[in-house]
């Protein structure tokens, strides 16, 4: 049964990947990329990596197709015909592929209990983390404590990406102009409005659940941040960008994006202030395990804040571009012929 599922999922992944490369219609490519994300997420679930699957579902299948669609709304859905040296590229891709296949020949079998990945570093995470950190989700222990510094780096990556988009699109569209940006869906589309209103509160509550339940089940700041942002973005899609910006304006979102990173960094520095190393939470509580708890909750909060704020910031900046072109109107998918 497992094998059948794996074969089915992997073949679907392959077909989707080829289709993405094949199609000249960027709109279908974007939708296919979303499908690819969802399939990968399912595949990760069958491999038992639920945390990764969760992230992939939220990012790969959720927000990244949305951002690609926002780009398409600006640059059109048709790819320009190109006569590049596709043969050379194909040759290179085949070489790399062959190297990857060759590499698999000597790999330990998937799930082999004697594989180095299961026998060297991992056993300590599995056996000791409950005593050392005291939370049931080992993945969170690794991400947020043993390798918390990598996670800090990842948050900074997200922040950098947000700044990159900001530096490129900032001020290109005059945000003070009163012209309605991404407009509300017309009133007669009642279904949209009602469904959105019903959906958004559970989405936000769910995001909070994912945020604070990450220690016990799959989830954490990254996923929660994305889900939280999606709630706001959905609102913007249905009720217009201005309506959302009244709640969380440009300045606020930029501030929060920076704040999340600072929260994370401050926890790290507090570790140093208590006489330990950077990101050592042990001295933050009455005993090391409580300290770890406190540290992990606060840094996850920092992650969530930055991720949500950056996603919203990027969405704002894209949508404001639509306004400048004057062809936004809530229809991200309309796109001009390129």
């Amino acid at each position: 049964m497992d094998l059948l599922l794996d074969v089915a999922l992997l073949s679907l992944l392959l077909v989707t990947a080829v289709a993405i490369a094949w199609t000249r219609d960027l709109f279908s490519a974007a939708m296919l990329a979303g499908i690819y994300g969802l399939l990968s997420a399912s595949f990760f679930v069958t491999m038992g990596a639920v945390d990764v699957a969760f992230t992939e579902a939220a990012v790969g299948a959720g927000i990244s197709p949305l951002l690609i669609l926002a780009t398409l709304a600006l640059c059109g859905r048709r790819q320009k015909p190109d006569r590049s040296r596709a043969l050379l590229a194909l040759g290179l891709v085949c070489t790399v592929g062959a190297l990857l296949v060759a590499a698999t020949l000597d790999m330990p079998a998937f799930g082999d209990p004697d594989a180095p990945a299961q026998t060297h570093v991992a056993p300590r995470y599995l056996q000791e983390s409950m005593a050392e950190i005291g939370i049931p989700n080992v993945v969170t222990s690794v991400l947020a404590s043993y390798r918390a510094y990598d996670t800090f780096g990842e948050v900074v990556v997200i922040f950098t990406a947000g700044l990159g988009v900001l530096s490129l699109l900032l001020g290109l569209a005059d945000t003070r102009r009163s012209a309605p940006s991404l407009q509300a869906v017309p009133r007669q589309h009642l279904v949209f409005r009602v469904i959105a209103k019903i959906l958004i509160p559970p989405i936000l509550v769910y995001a909070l659940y994912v945020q604070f339940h990450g220690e016990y089940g799959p989830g954490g700041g990254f996923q929660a941040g994305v889900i939280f942002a999606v709630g706001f973005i959905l609102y913007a899609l249905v009720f217009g960008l201005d309506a959302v910006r009244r709640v969380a304006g440009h300045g606020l979102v930029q501030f929060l994006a920076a704040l999340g990173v600072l929260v994370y960094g401050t926890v790290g520095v507090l570790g140093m202030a208590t006489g330990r190393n950077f990101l050592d939470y042990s001295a933050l509580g009455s005993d090391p395990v409580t300290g770890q708890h406190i540290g992990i909750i606060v840094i996850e909060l920092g992650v969530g804040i930055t991720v949500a704020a950056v996603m919203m910031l990027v969405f704002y900046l894209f949508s404001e571009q639509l306004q400048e072109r004057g062809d936004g109107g809530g229809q991200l998918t309309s796109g001009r012929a390129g």
Partner: protein
Amino acid sequence: MLSHLPILQVILPLVAAPSCMMIRRANLVWFFAMLVSTAALVVSVLLLQQVLDTGPISYRLGGWEAPWGIEYRIDLLNAWVLLVITGLGTAVLTAARVSVQREMDDLRQTVFYSLYLLCFAGLLGIVATGDVFNVFVFLEISSLATYALIALGRDRRSLWAAFQYLIMGTIGATFILIGIGFLYMMTGTLNMADLAQRLPEINSSNTVLAAFAFIVVGVCLKLALFPLHMWLPNAYAFAPSIVTAFLAATATKVALYLLVRFIVTVFGVDFSLTSLPLQSLFIGLGLMGVFVASVVAIYQVDIKRMLAYSSVAQVGYMVVGIGISSVVALQATLLHLFNHALMKGGLFLALAGLVYRLGSSRIDAFNGLGRTMPWTMGAIVVGGISLIGMPLTVGFVSKWYLITAAIESDMWFVALLVVLGSLIAAIYIWRLVEAGYFREAPVARAATVGEAPLSLLVPTWILIGANIYFGIDTRLPVEVTGAAAQYLLGGIQ
């Protein structure tokens, strides 16, 4: 506090970057960024001192010992590179204010400094860490920041250049990640020292070989080793002047450091240079890079692009040093890493002054420059002489060591080609001298254009002065790089 030096180096700029977004006043942000990078420079000086005194330092992040947690491990090699990056990063940042004011609108300046610090921290993080996955994370930070910084150029072609680099850089980063994944699969660890210990048992396997291939190609993409250099000329030519100076002085140096680190420390020289014909490949590609890029440089009209091609050529020299793989050759590479940072940092800052006054870096902007902007032109001449490798400049020192190493290893043709390559450099530098001193400036310009502002000129001349100072008093770089090369290759010599 002293025990925290390794991490302070990186988290100072890393935490300062988001703080910039809260200050939001261009001049204040610049000043703040200056303070932070100066502090990082001081830390790196202390760190080098400490490593020289006590040997390699290890720092456990989160208090978890390696390989379960992430370790920062500072030895002579990365202490040296950290010093180069913080030194050059600070010098360039000192010069940044007026140039950035001229080339960017108010809104973007805050974001610019924030991105600059992120890139700075990313590069430092790559160098300081002793964990291969952590390398990837910080590579992402510095790369993303770099793409955005390049795209801030005034010319709209900067967008295309940044996009080109984004695609190439992402391929490189993905290759590195694939390699790291394979290594983890085969060893169960991500810690460099631990990998070095566990790899020899299994390094005949296809998977490790593939990991090695992916990592080397990925790093060489970031390094812009010929023929993977296609992204570099456009990126340097169209980026804001300050960004070009910063990247030329630091980014390729970090990629070179990574190459040395992976080849020597992680995989070990025995494996790295015997499993693939890497030795001849590096010498061959390096020398081809020197010649092709130098010849192409002669024909460039835009001087920023000319110096960019020259950078590709200089990367060639450094890789030749790795290819020869003796202690002296590696020392030559590490010396050239420092020396080239000084040359290109100084030269591109001088160009920033030119662009500030004339708004152009084309060859015809140089006409009569010896009279209108004598100090800027003087800096370019001295920097150029160093680039050619004349005695009494740093360029001579590293080439001397490279040639010595080649002769010691009986590679006479390599030594000869290195000298020939320098002669080609003399040709393209001569074009600048000819335009600057032997051609007349347009009459209209001669009266109006003055010397570059002092805040640009002083950092330029500090770097140019360093070219001469370290060309005469070679003790510091020669001693440190000699000890570092000995430490890295000590086992096999």
